[in-house]
């Protein structure tokens, strides 16, 4: 049985290596792992759900006209006094937990994606400049990066938020500041290797402008590891934001992300009303885990050394 399997693999693989666009090859390689495929489907599903949350959810949990305190802390599956069924229960204000989770997911994802994206741009630009110009700039940048990476991101974000106060923009700022260094270090490492290759030399000989060489020639070749780090950072940012909000230094109560929902449910949990805290937590876990499994597989596929 096992032997037959390896034989077929041997036959098909070289063929698919010859024809086919690199992207298609990558996807077919990626889909070989069942877990990763399922995780990817879940990940895109969550993105869609979060994007269309106002259309899907049965109520806007932050429109006071739509919620009624009479339906407060109902257990999952119970019917409210107007006959609506709350599949995941309600919180103390009578908010439908399912709707609250959908809206919370939106905020969590928005923060994760935007801070990941900004950190990517900021870190990549600095790392690329350091690698390209080298010398004192490089030494200075790498010293700062080393110093920053020796402290946990959580601690840096915590201190920044203690100083800045609460708010979405402040949380995003703190997350970018605490995560840019990962990008800078990665892109610098790759760029230093790429810089020595012939195509950069050729571009130099053609007297192309520095800007063109850096962004059109060097940057695209540094992208693969950056994509992986970027995805990891989005997952980390979502988890970090939830943690910061739980600690009471993240988002204000008016913009409840998943972390804040969990935190709000904490006191009710001790009296047995588990659903206010548990379901947002599961939503958070599924989101972060699906992104992490996706990235894990992406890393494997993009790194040819691991394919043995």
């Amino acid at each position, binding site marked *: 049985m096992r032997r037959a399997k390896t034989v077929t693999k041997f036959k098909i693989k070289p063929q698919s290596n010859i024809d086919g666009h690199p992207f298609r090859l990558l996807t077919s390689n990626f889909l070989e792992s069942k877990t990763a495929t399922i995780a990817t489907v879940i990940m895109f599903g969550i993105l869609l759900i979060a994007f269309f949350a106002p259309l899907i959810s049965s109520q806007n949990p932050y429109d006071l006209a739509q919620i009624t305190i009479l339906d407060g802390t109902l257990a999952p599956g119970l019917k409210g006094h107007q006959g609506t069924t709350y599949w995941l229960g309600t919180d103390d204000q009578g908010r439908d937990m399912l709707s609250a989770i959908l809206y919370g997911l939106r905020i969590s994802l928005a923060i994760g994606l935007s801070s990941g994206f900004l950190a990517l741009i900021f870190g990549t630009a600095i790392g690329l400049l350091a690698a390209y110009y080298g010398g004192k700039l490089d030494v200075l940048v790498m010293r700062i990066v080393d110093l920053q990476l020796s402290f946990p991101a959580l601690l840096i974000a915590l201190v920044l938020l*203690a100083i800045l106060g609460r708010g979405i923009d402040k949380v995003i700022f703190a997350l970018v500041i605490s995560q840019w260094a990962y990008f800078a270090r990665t892109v610098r490492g790759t760029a230093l290797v790429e810089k020595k290759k012939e195509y950069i030399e050729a571009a130099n000989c053609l007297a192309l402008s520095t800007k063109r060489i850096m962004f059109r020639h060097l940057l695209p070749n540094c992208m693969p590891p950056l994509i992986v780090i970027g995805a990891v950072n989005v997952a980390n940012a979502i988890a970090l934001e939830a943690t910061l909000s739980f600690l009471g230094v993240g988002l204000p109560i008016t913009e409840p992300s998943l972390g804040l929902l969990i935190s709000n449910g904490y006191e009710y*949990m001790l009296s047995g009303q588990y659903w206010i805290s548990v379901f947002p937590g599961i939503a958070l876990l599924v989101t972060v885990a699906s992104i992490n499994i996706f990235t894990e597989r992406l890393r494997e596929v993009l790194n040819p050394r691991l394919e043995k």
Partner: protein
Amino acid sequence: MTVFLVRRMIQSVIILWVMSLLVFTGVYAIGNPVDMLIDPQSSQEVRETAIRNLGLDRPLWVQYIVFLKGAVRGNLGNSFIYNMPALKLITQRLPATLELATSAMMIAIFVGLPLGIVAGLKSKSAIGRGIMTCSILGFSLPNFWVGLMFVMIFSITLGWLPTSGRGETVEIFGIGISFLTIDGLKHLILPALTLSLFPLALIIRLTKAGVEETWLSEFVKFARSKGLTMNRIILVHILKNILIPVVTVTGIQFGMLLAFAVVTETVFAWPGMGKLIIDSINYLDRPVIVAYLLVTVIIFIIINLIVDTLYSVLDPRVGIGE
């Protein structure tokens, strides 16, 4: 070696100074602690005396110089809330955090190494894949939520373990330690387990990667062809070679644990440094915030130094003299 240590000492002093400057200016931009400390209905006169007594009427740079003068003598200022030296407050709480972090690290190492070895040797089998998928979960589980779930399951539903606090402690050299009493141990299990999940996942992954790599190397093939037992190959030949990255990561992770203890301590009301910093941030207790950060920086510097030195001990090829 001496040159290396001296250079590191000089670097550390510079880092500490830069951090103190950054943190001091940053923290002193937060709100007005007097509003938190004095009854808002008290007269203007009372307010002004309080401000003067705390030294808050002077310009920032004067305050910083006063702070620096005290800091080189080991005095990081008095806490506004507890009215005692901030440094003393932190050193009182430090043992609890260290105990929590050490226990978590122990769990991570003693569970993570065997699981990682199994996953590495059987990477294609269901067990290996299962361990690796679980390790991704370990990365993804939000620390505080796991803590909450543990409390819900083991404390509230099953009633096996206490929800919060540190329990009974035993005094050793004047430091309270809780893992020596049964009650203390009961209080320790859940927080330590919660905190250990992240380093556990990391150690599993590192060990697995290391085992897979060394398994293909010549010396393992040679050991196998000599007919050595599996146990000997794994415990002597493989383990020795994968220990270096594991030790490095363990060291660095220990620092991370001290930071993540902030979260775990908040969930379990564990009376450590992390709980103190969150309270201080909420009460704007500036001296404690500054002192906490400087103590953390010192701990990190020490950990990095130990890791770098251990590196050259474990692998003689790594020189530290540069």
